[in-house]
């Protein structure tokens, strides 16, 4: 076997893998939050992310930016970043809430079996991505170069760019903030209570519906941020981008222990880096296969993921 592809590029592959992993981790939070509280795989979360990737493009389009624009100076760049993030967060958050209200809440009212939720999620996912597909003629949309990738420092042959630092930092900050929110705030306590035992929580006066809406909203916010980062890193979006990355994100969530916030971060980073190593070693076509092999192996030894399950129990 030819190891040179991996060994020669080890440093750069690690760095780009971490950046990709950070995006996956932010995306995975949505799966993990909803799962932790509702024990539900929210398949439509991938489309929440997809709408975010288009929302920030739309916002930038209002400034007359398209894929052919020149990279802006620092001042406007900051403005564009804030506007893009706000647009993506609003749209993704709203989309997540809409999915909850249209596809899940009616089912919960009727006490539907768990599988029914999964299927409406699939229906919602199909609906959103197809509507986007028809609206964009299934073409790709290029992203304006808001942040020009520039090397910041170099270790050996490994160059780290400003964009990579931004992505990883933003993911860590959001992660920390979310962790504080869930563990430190009053609302967060409600989330943990519902995650541990929905019925007792309801009896103790926690408004379950509001907690569930909050969880969807939080997942949507994180997906919105991930969407902007994705746009900047990948540079192109398309109607099936959500589905594609969604599989990775879901895998990462399970890998770290679904329902566990820190697990999502760990799983995401691990997955991003590992995919790059596999691509270096075996060729890019094996990238996704490698992530599933890793998943199976880890689940065989740790059946509930690396850090274990449960939003509530993990740090009660």
């Amino acid at each position, binding site marked *: 076997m030819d190891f040179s*592809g991996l060994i*020669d590029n080890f440093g750069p*592959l690690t760095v780009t893998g971490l950046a990709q992993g950070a995006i996956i981790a932010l995306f995975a939070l949505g799966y993990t939050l909803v799962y932790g509280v509702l024990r539900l795989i929210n398949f439509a979360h991938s489309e929440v992310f997809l709408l975010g990737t288009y929302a920030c493009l739309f916002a930038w389009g209002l400034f007359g930016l398209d*894929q052919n624009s020149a990279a802006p100076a620092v001042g406007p760049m900051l403005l564009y970043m804030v506007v893009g993030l706000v647009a993506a967060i609003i749209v993704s958050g709203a989309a997540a809430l809409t999915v909850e209200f249209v596809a899940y809440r009616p089912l919960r009212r009727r006490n539907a079996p768990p599988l029914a939720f999964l299927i409406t999620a699939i229906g919602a996912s199909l609906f959103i991505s197809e509507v986007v597909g028809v609206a964009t003629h*299934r073409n790709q*949309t290029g992203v304006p170069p808001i942040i020009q990738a520039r090397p910041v420092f170099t270790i050996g042959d490994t160059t780290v760019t400003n964009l990579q630092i931004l992505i990883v930092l933003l993911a860590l900050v959001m992660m920390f903030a979310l962790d504080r929110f869930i563990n430190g705030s009053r609302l967060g306590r409600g989330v943990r209570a519902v995650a541990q035992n929905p019925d007792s929580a309801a009896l103790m006066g926690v408004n379950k519906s509001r907690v569930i809406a909050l969880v969807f909203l939080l997942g949507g916010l994180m997906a919105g941020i991930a969407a902007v980062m994705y746009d900047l890193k990948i*540079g192109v979006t398309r109607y099936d981008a959500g589905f594609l990355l969604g599989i990775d994100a879901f895998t990462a969530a399970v890998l770290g222990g679904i329902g566990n916030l820190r697990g999502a971060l760990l799983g995401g980073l691990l997955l991003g880096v590992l995919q790059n190593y596999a691509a270096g070693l075996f060729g890019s*076509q094996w*990238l996704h296969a490698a992530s599933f092999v890793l998943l199976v192996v880890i689940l065989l030894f740790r059946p509930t993921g690396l850090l274990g399950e449960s939003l509530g129990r993990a740090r009660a």
Partner: protein
Amino acid sequence: MRQVLARAIGGVAIIGLIAGAAACNSGSSSDDTASEGNCGYKLAFFGALTGSAANLGVNIEQGFELAIDQYNKAKGSTCIEVAKFDSQGEASVAPGVARSLVADKKIIGIVGPPFSGESEAADPIFESAGIPTITPSATRVSLSSKGWKVFHRAVANDDAQGPAAAAYIKDNLKATKVFVADDQSAYGAGLADVVKTKLGSLVVATDKTEGDGKQADFSALVQKVSSSGATALFYGGYYTNAGIIRKQLTAAGWKGTLLGGDGMKDPGLSKASGVQAAVGTVVTCPCSPPEAAGGTFVNDYKAKWNQDAGTYSDVAFDAANVFLQGIDAGNTTPQKLNDYLKTVNYKGIANTYKFTETGELDPNFIKVWAFKFDSSGDAKADVEIKTS
């Protein structure tokens, strides 16, 4: 009681859904043929109009429909009707769609199928129905060796384009370090394999990616290309992936040239990567530049569809015109039209069309041109590649 009510409502809703669908069923399968002035027939497009390959299919369909539109306008009536059959580009869907196509007896010619996979699944059905097909883009070599009499290919197959691309890299680009990658599609891998063999020791490294819509992060490929020291990357695949790869290569600071086959000759590439990054990207195509033909195709296409002509739009336009010319000459049955194709010698905008016994383009007419993306965001004719 409430449950019964809910059930009744559910049932009614579903029946309503189906009945509603049925109500707007646009039925049209009359079998009356014959009419005056060689009119009243249909030409069909068979290919992907929905699904992940739809953008390629739509390019072709629009070129095809434009030709028929112009013909009808010249005639002053809807002489030849357009029939569209959506195979979704999938071999598993194609047979059923093909069978429904052959059931329409007014259809006497087919432009398509665009992909080699669906061709394998659908062409046997067209063959047994005896309806002539001209594919504008299915370039798998083996398709012409199956003994199908109705099979015609309006482009050169993979064997013609690969050597030309390799020759361009060697002679025009004079690259000494080349990285070759492909998307594992039958088209892309076939092309890349030929290029690899022809370039021999110039190839410093290779890689493979997943297909269109199955991969978006190419950072591993980008890293390998950068560290290999290659000054040229040949990518066997379509413009969808190529656009992302070009963008990510530029973002990573790689300054070399991206090259590819006709599957990358589409303004969609620069729409994804941004014109700046795409400038200088070279695509080979076994076709002549449409502007060289002196026609108004490029402008007409833009006027009708409000977007630029894409990959294979011009070939599809020509293919439709080949059929229309045949119909005009009084070949109004599938059999006659198929016989007509054996003798056709038509100069279109992308090529001159004359078919061999097996339905391939006459090798004497195959010209391979290199096209280069310029600041307009589209690939413009560069040079004709000499292969020998």
